[in-house]
């Protein structure tokens, strides 16, 4: 998605890409840094733009950035006149950002949340915003060989900047740069977030966003977790949320659960696929009725983007950063099986029976862990796009494409579990 907006006062088109859109003008144009592919995807049947004398005299096709290739239709329709009414109209099939933002994403270098920054960066760039992603640690680290980091060239191709470093040195790393928005998608406690928050505050960042966790909600017998519900007082994320609310006038916290999506750093659906394609039983602790929320990561990036583009509405709020449907653990196994077009055998076991291996045995919490995105829907007008049955089909296609179905794997803990189920337990 690309925005086309132009600042009427700018004489030189090269400077235009950094200019902000005049909100009153629906017919102004901004030529952003576009890759040839993204431009060709945009249909430009007609263009309407206001023309000012300065504009008409400065725009020439040769002065446009090199990557900006024009379709013949576009150049044909581009006629400028000094009269106030445009002689040709030009509509863009793209969402136009209300205001271009400079966004910094501080991203973790591993784990389930890593992929959030990747999608968010790409979506922001697609909407015409300026993006810098600071990944914690070293660019040369082995961690960078894994997705989504291995695909960071996509961020660069989209016009974003990628840098590496430690949050303690953030002021140095980003010296001279200013940002409108910062997203901390790294810290789980105040020690990790404070340096980022303090630097952001001192450098005049307007909006601070934080990736927290729905895991901080206190367990309840009345699901779902709704924003405002009691949280575990000693959780690191809770201390961060509190600090941010004290430091920033405009802040928001996003509490995610589990996510699927290409570029994920941590296994989610793969855990099920690994077993299903090998004809192995899928061991699920407890009854399998536990409800959880597994979202496509694009839901998370779209919610974050909504907050960036609606800062006043988002300010001071907690958002459960999840899709709007829960699935049971058994249900997830069944959906993965359907997506793979293969049968599944689910076996239930008592995690207590396998002792300390229980934690590593299964990638999800053994309890109802179910939040609903009510604040995002109410306050930001956000809608979920996750469609697990369809999304899992795509995920399975990629799973096979990368050859993971043929990979040799051992299932030591699974084997232990299955063994333990064969032995009759004396009462």
């Amino acid at each position, binding site marked *: 998605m690309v925005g086309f907006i132009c600042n009427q006062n700018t004489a030189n088109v090269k400077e235009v890409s950094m200019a902000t859109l005049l909100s009153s003008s629906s017919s102004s144009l901004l030529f952003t840094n576009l890759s040839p592919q993204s431009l060709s995807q945009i249909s430009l049947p007609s263009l309407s733009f206001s023309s000012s004398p300065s504009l008409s005299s400065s725009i020439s096709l040769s002065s446009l950035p090199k990557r900006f290739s024009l379709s013949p239709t576009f150049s044909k329709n581009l006629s400028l006149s000094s009269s106030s009414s445009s002689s040709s109209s030009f509509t863009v099939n793209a969402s136009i950002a209300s205001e271009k933002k400079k966004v910094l994403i501080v991203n973790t270098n591993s784990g389930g949340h890593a992929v959030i920054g990747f999608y968010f960066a790409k979506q922001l760039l697609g909407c015409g915003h300026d993006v810098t992603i600071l990944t914690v640690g070293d660019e040369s680290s082995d961690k960078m060989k894994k997705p989504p980091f291995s695909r960071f060239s996509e961020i660069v191709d989209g016009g974003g900047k990628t840098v590496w470093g430690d949050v303690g040195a953030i002021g140095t790393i980003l010296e001279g740069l200013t940002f409108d928005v910062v997203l901390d998608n790294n810290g789980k406690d105040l020690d990790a977030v404070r340096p980022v928050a303090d630097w952001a505050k001192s450098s005049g960042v307007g909006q601070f966003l934080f990736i927290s966790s729905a895991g901080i909600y206190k367990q309840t017998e009345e*699901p779902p977790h709704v924003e405002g519900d009691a949280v575990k007082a000693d959780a690191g994320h809770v201390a961060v949320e509190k600090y941010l609310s004290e430091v920033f006038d405009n802040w928001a916290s996003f509490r995610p659960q589990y996510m699927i999506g290409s570029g994920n750093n941590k296994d989610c659906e793969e855990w099920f696929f690994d077993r299903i394609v090998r004809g192995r039983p899928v061991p699920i602790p407890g*009854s399998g009725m*536990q409800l959880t929320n597994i979202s496509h990561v694009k839901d998370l990036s779209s919610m974050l983007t909504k907050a960036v583009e609606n800062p006043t509405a988002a300010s001071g*709020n907690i958002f459960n950063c999840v899709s709007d449907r829960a699935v049971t653990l058994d249900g997830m196994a069944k*959906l993965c099986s359907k997506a793979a077009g293969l049968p599944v055998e689910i076996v239930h076991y008592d995690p207590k029976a396998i002792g300390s291996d229980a934690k590593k045995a299964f990638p999800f919490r053994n309890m109802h862990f179910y939040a609903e995105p009510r604040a995002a829907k*109410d306050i930001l007008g956000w809608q979920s796009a996750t469609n697990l049955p369809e999304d899992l089909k795509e995920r399975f296609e990629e799973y096979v494409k990368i050859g993971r179905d043929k990979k040799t794997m051992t299932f030591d803990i699974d084997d232990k579990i299955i063994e333990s189920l064969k032995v009759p337990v004396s009462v």
Partner: protein
Amino acid sequence: MAAAGVATLQHNFFKMQPSSVSLLPSSHSSFCGTKFNTSVQYKRKVCQPKGALNVTASSAKKILVMGGTRFIGIFLSRLLVEEGHQVTLFTRGKAPITQPLPGESDEAYNAFKSKILHLKGDRKDFDFVKTSLAAEGFDVVYDINGREAVEVEPILDALPKLEQYIYCSSAGVYLKSDLLPHCETDAVDPKSRHKGKLETEALLESKGVNYTSIRPVYIYGPLNYNPVEEWFFHRLKAGRPIPIPNSGIQVTQLGHVKDLAKAFIKVLGNEKASKQVYNISGDRYVTFDGLARACAKAGGFPEPEIVHYNPKEFDFGKKKAFPFRDQHFFASVEKAKAELGIVPEYGLVEGLTDSYNLDFGRGTFRKEADFSTDDIILGKSLVLS
């Protein structure tokens, strides 16, 4: 008239005097639903003033209620009368046309009794339905007890100028799914036990009449004739363990009858509700185990002993060992919230407390306690251990 109706509403209908000790703080008005969790809620666009009815300024209408003398209709008809509408209840007359609500003042009851009208008949007698309704003419029909589409046809035929047909359907129409909650756009099950409700909705849609269909989940509250909370209260009062099938983490959802009645009022004359379907129930869901504990809190009972069992190991004959479907069953009420501003007021424990204080706690209930299936379950458990 509407304004006076609202004032009366606050004063008469909802000012119940609980006879037993209320678990709610004393400043709590018996109607207002105090939010159970007092932590700061996120900023909301839709703000409902507590206890206010937000009566839509609809002029007085001639309203027919199919049913109205057992549970939902009792609360709904009171609200309608207090709003100044002319309300007729169509029933066979098996239950008393009017009965005082627990805690209701004589003044309020008499005011209601003097205004409510009754049309005696069997709704399955389609000819009678058609002629009697045509003779009377009604602006709006609330169909609270309709089960089959055929029952609705004569009503529509009799009232060609009907302004709105408001139907009490059921969330039971939803097709079982691995993805929850059920939303109004989800697939429905044409083979479900509630297919009559589905067929009725389809008929209303096909006839082009201005209809609104409400799909409640499990309804609870004083005068409930379905043993929902009563089932737990019987066991809690008897100091018996509560047998719950399988894991006890099955998630269900209860909606207070007073919230449901208010929702029915909210859709009256509401253009936004035209030809729409709404899930109406509580704001949160609850596990079976959680519900047992919530009932205990509501009645001031100690925490119950819960016994889980595998229903497949038993043969209960025709008897139901547990009053809920043994599966997850809950629906999102966000559509009604977002589009109509319908926000349930009762939290679970406070709603169950209201039910206990006004009904079971006063010694009233609909079904006698029957612990025969419990004893089968507990008997076998005893043997195993």
